[in-house]
């Protein structure tokens, strides 16, 4: 073993993380080579120094501050955040959608121009996207419309908010009864609330390509990408710079309408080899009903307090009631935020997708399974042959006038030669 190789393993050796034959090889080398022994000692001391750093303790107010921040964010988060994020998500993928549409058009145009009867799943480089354009189209949801309907969806939960802005004195309005169909056993406006979560890990040949496809599928289903990060293996890279680096891993958290959940899971699964897939449903009806009735109780309390307030005589009384009132309102707001949050979770199910580079297999253009690739290659070659004959036919047809001229010239020459011979 060379020193350099040994050097690469010294760190793991210190941690006892080397598998047996390697560990012994390193040990033997270090015992025999004073240089590497010194190196090892230096590393050991380095590790020790780092580990000797004193623990820094958080400020005593840490968890209190955190709670306050979380409360504030829960209130804020239930309002505009969803719409904002969705709006951005829709915009970010708009160019991809546009390219896909153009690609579809070009693909269709090319196909009809060439006029071959062969059907191919991918029509060359632009066809890769075109394929997805077609898939999105098939699901009956044109990609371009995604942005608009997204914002509609996201705007819905924010509506009740307008009633409680500015500390208006009127009690907060309960949810509109007409919004939900009636169900037995539950208050008329509450249906069963089930949150669907999915988790999918897929090994793919080309992570970057798969990443775009996932985004496309999600967009097609009128969902959005809530969170994403891509890694080159060394460091995370910003999504915008994805093209410049060889991406090895990508993680996405996507939200799709409950109805599209299974279809989206299936489509993402088709991008490569699924190594993990799980789905779970969490029934939050009980919590929803509880929270809802707590809100109603508090609202009654609020109304009572307002009544008392109107009868209060002294400043002290008014202040006390005011205090109580603001506490009750704070609670109402928090619980309503929770209800909206639950609603949004139910309306949009969450899928966590992780894409990993398939190891050992070099990324092949187009992706897909072996059979699919063979079939595609077969079709491509077949089409190439068909194209050749097609081109040959066109060439021949185009050559006919030239051939005619040539034949006439040849005929004249031949006739002239024969005439001269006869004379001679």
């Amino acid at each position: 073993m060379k020193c350099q190789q040994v050097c690469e393993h010294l760190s793991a050796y210190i941690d006892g993380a080397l598998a047996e034959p390697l560990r012994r090889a390193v040990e033997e080398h270090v015992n025999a080579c004073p240089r590497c022994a010194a190196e090892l000692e230096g590393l050991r001391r380095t590790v020790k120094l780092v580990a000797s750093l004193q623990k820094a303790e958080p400020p005593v107010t840490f968890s209190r501050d955190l709670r306050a921040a979380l409360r504030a964010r829960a209130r804020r988060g239930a309002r505009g955040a969803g719409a904002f994020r969705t709006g951005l998500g829709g915009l970010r993928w708009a160019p991809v959608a546009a390219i896909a549409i153009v690609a579809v058009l070009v693909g269709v145009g090319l196909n009809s121009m060439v006029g071959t009867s062969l059907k191919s799943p991918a029509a060359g480089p632009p066809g890769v996207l075109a394929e997805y354009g077609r898939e999105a189209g098939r699901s009956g949801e044109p990609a371009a419309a995604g942005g608009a309907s997204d914002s509609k969806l996201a705007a819905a939960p924010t509506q009740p908010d307008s009633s409680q802005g500015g500390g208006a004195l009127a009690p907060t309005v309960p949810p509109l009864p007409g919004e939900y169909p009636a169900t037995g056993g539950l208050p008329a406006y509450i249906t069963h609330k089930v949150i669907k979560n999915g988790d999918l890990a897929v090994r793919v040949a080309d992570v970057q390509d798969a990443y775009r496809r996932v985004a496309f599928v999600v967009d097609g289903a009128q969902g959005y990408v809530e969170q994403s990060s891509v890694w080159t293996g060394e460091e995370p890279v910003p999504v915008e710079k994805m093209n410049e680096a060889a991406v090895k891993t990508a993680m996405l958290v996507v939200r799709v309408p409950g109805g599209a959940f299974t279809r989206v899971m299936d489509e993402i699964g088709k991008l490569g080899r699924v190594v993990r897939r799980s789905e779970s449903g969490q029934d939050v009806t009980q919590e929803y009903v509880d929270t809802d009735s707590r809100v109603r109780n508090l609202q009654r309390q609020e109304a009572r307090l307002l009544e008392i307030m109107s009868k209060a005589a002294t400043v002290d009384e008014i202040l006390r009631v005011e205090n109580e009132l603001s506490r009750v309102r704070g609670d109402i707001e928090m619980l309503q935020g929770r209800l909206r949050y639950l609603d949004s979770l139910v309306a949009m199910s969450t899928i966590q997708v992780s894409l990993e580079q398939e190891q050992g297999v070099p990324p092949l253009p187009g992706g897909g399974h072996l059979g699919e690739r063979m079939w595609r290659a077969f079709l491509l070659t077949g089409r190439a042959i068909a194209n050749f004959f097609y081109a040959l036919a066109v060439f021949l047809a185009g050559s006919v006038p030239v051939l005619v001229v040539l034949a006439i010239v040849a005929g004249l020459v031949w006739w002239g030669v024969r005439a001269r011979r006869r004379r001679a």
Partner: protein
Amino acid sequence: MGVDLPEDALVARSRDGDLEAFTGLVEAYQSRIYNLAFRLVGNREDAGDMAQEVFIRAFMALKGFKGRASFSTWLHRVAANVCLDELRRRRRQPVTSLDATYRTSDGDDLARQVADPAPGPEELAEREEVQRAVQLGIRSLTPAHRLVVVLRDIQGLTYQEMSQALGVSVGTVKSRLNRARESLRHTFAGRELLGRAAVCSGEGGEKA
């Protein structure tokens, strides 16, 4: 309520949005996460902000936590993402060095005077000197290297846990950690913190 429940119960409740239960988790992990942030950014104020951000994001993302890794590892993953984001953002707007001079409005250059947090007896001062040097050494690493060193040697995560927390393979963790420690060793050797230590140059003789 609920704060002295076992961890998985706290996690389950927090996932349902129970702030009380989540506070229990925060209290259990705040030291570790704060310490991690502190060693990564090097000052208390930013460390506090960053640790807060870690817990806020964890609370928001908890529904995505499926219990494949331990909660601690998962939390470290969130922390790693938050810290890396922050460190990357910061690289674009570098922190003022304490060694740089401070230019007053009159155009005079003043040396910065930094308050020494705990001036004590001699050996304590010396130990503090070493601590500061070590911290500076860590901060001289790239964000990714800093992270592996802190996760391993300060937070004490195993290679497996680090691989989960960083979303990379164990092999990558190993080689990254090796490189990080190697460059740290060079820095420390330059500051004469290691005593006598030779360099393994790699072009050395071949041994069986």
